[in-house]
């Protein structure tokens, strides 16, 4: 609810634009132990010391702050101040950071793992084998920033029957939409059906 609605609503604040800039600032390695950028949205109670209280758990848990956007002019209907924090951390530390924030009583509105789904699961249905499965998978990896994290094929009973596959793709922040689009294009070309994940919380 927060981002799209605020962006549409009024005479453009800088919130969305700044977040995008931060996301562009990184090269594109695959996974590994290299720090990856993340965005966390918090809503702070309007009291002294709250911002510091929010930042401490990030530093304590191995996060490196990149930027903080404190939207004082954009107080929520509940009287809280939205804060968007960009940070980077090794892939395995992010959950710990979010947990630590919640333990501190911080109101975490969105953490990008939830919002963007760094993992994306979808189904492919059709004549998967006849349409060159390895080519399909290869092209999905080639033409997106996603890498195939897991793959399950449920083979057809007869050769004429359709088969199904479940793909788990690891995508970078913000890469989900384009990954889905690419899969959709490749599937359309091969007359396969894609069952896309439902992303709640976005329009």
């Amino acid at each position, binding site marked *: 609810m927060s981002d799209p609605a605020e962006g549409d609503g009024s005479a453009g604040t800088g919130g969305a634009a700044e977040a995008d800039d931060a996301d562009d600032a990184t090269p594109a390695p695959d996974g590994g132990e290299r720090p990856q950028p993340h965005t966390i949205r918090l809503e702070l109670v309007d009291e002294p010391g709250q911002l510091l209280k929010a930042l401490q758990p990030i530093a304590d848990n191995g996060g490196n702050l990149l930027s903080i956007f404190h939207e004082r002019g954009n107080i929520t209907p509940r009287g809280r101040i939205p804060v968007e924090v960009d940070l980077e951390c090794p892939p395995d530390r992010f959950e710990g950071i979010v947990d630590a924030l919640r333990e501190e009583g911080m109101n975490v509105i969105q953490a990008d793992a939830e919002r963007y789904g760094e993992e994306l699961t979808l189904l492919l*249905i059709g004549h998967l084998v006849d349409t060159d499965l390895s080519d399909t998978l290869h092209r999905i990896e080639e033409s997106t920033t996603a890498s195939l994290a897991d793959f399950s094929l*449920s083979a057809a009973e007869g050769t004429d029957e359709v088969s*199904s596959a479940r793909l788990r793709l690891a995508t970078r922040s913000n890469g989900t939409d384009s990954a889905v689009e690419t899969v959709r294009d490749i599937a359309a070309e091969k007359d396969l*059906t894609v*069952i896309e*994940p*439902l992303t*709640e919380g976005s*329009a």
Partner: protein
Amino acid sequence: MTGHRLAVLGAGAVGGSVVELAADYGHEVVAFADSSSAAVDPDGIDEAGALDRKERADAVGDGDPADALAADYDVLVEATPTTLGDAEPGYSHVEAALSRDRDVVLANKGPVAERFADVRALERDSAGDLLFEATVGGAIPVLATLADYGPRNVSAARGILNGTANFILSRMTAEGLGYEHVLAEAQDLGVAEADPAFDVQGTDAALKCVILANVLSEARADDPAEAREFQLTDATVEGIEDIPGSALELASESGRTVRLVGEATPEGVRVGPRLVPPGSSLAVSGTRNLVQFEHEHCGQLNLSGRGAGGPETAAAVLADVGRLS
């Protein structure tokens, strides 16, 4: 609330239930028609007699359907079957009532899904009002909630809006059975119609989402007459006919489930099978329907209940009648 005098057009499950239940809600039925006959009585028709005759002789009375439309009623309840394109004869019924400054309550989706701008224009020129709660989500108070909580604050509505499709997907998942098998079972149970195309191809869910998109879009327009209008042809629609049991198994193995999900925003409509994450409120089972609003101040707001059925949908119709002044 004072009782209203109702003319009920359409004698299917919904129209019949409205006639049967109207008195419980404090209203009187003065006219009742199916496609070929009518019962009209300014002092109130014999409801039980008309329903009994419909069952035995496939006629509700001795009159002509046009008599019902011309009767002296306060509220026209339009419950004839949903038609696409020109939405006739439903649209003409709406036009006839509004031009006489009478109120209209729709159970028929056609006029508001296919000709939303036209019916709103008729309503603007009329002293009568048009309500259509029963067209989206059966018994669930979807449109009333939307109106109360402000459609401008709702960025998206999504939901499970077809009980037949949801029943089929739930059974296929739970029992590991194929589509054809479960469809036949659903037909035996009366959950699916003999011709299930409207439900399993996503058309029915899409019409409901088109209606929601029209309401969301209208609320954002400075001049309602200029609001972007949606019709079925504007919706991206996929059905569930081609989903093999193996796909549902793969979904289950990862803790997910496949549901026919409809999404409406002020910008568009999309209906199709989607992978629903574990724990999602959209993972409802059986014929249950669920609508979820993304509301600026409330976050997610979920409403669920029975999305079809005679008495259920009639209750939504009669709730609308009660909302009229």
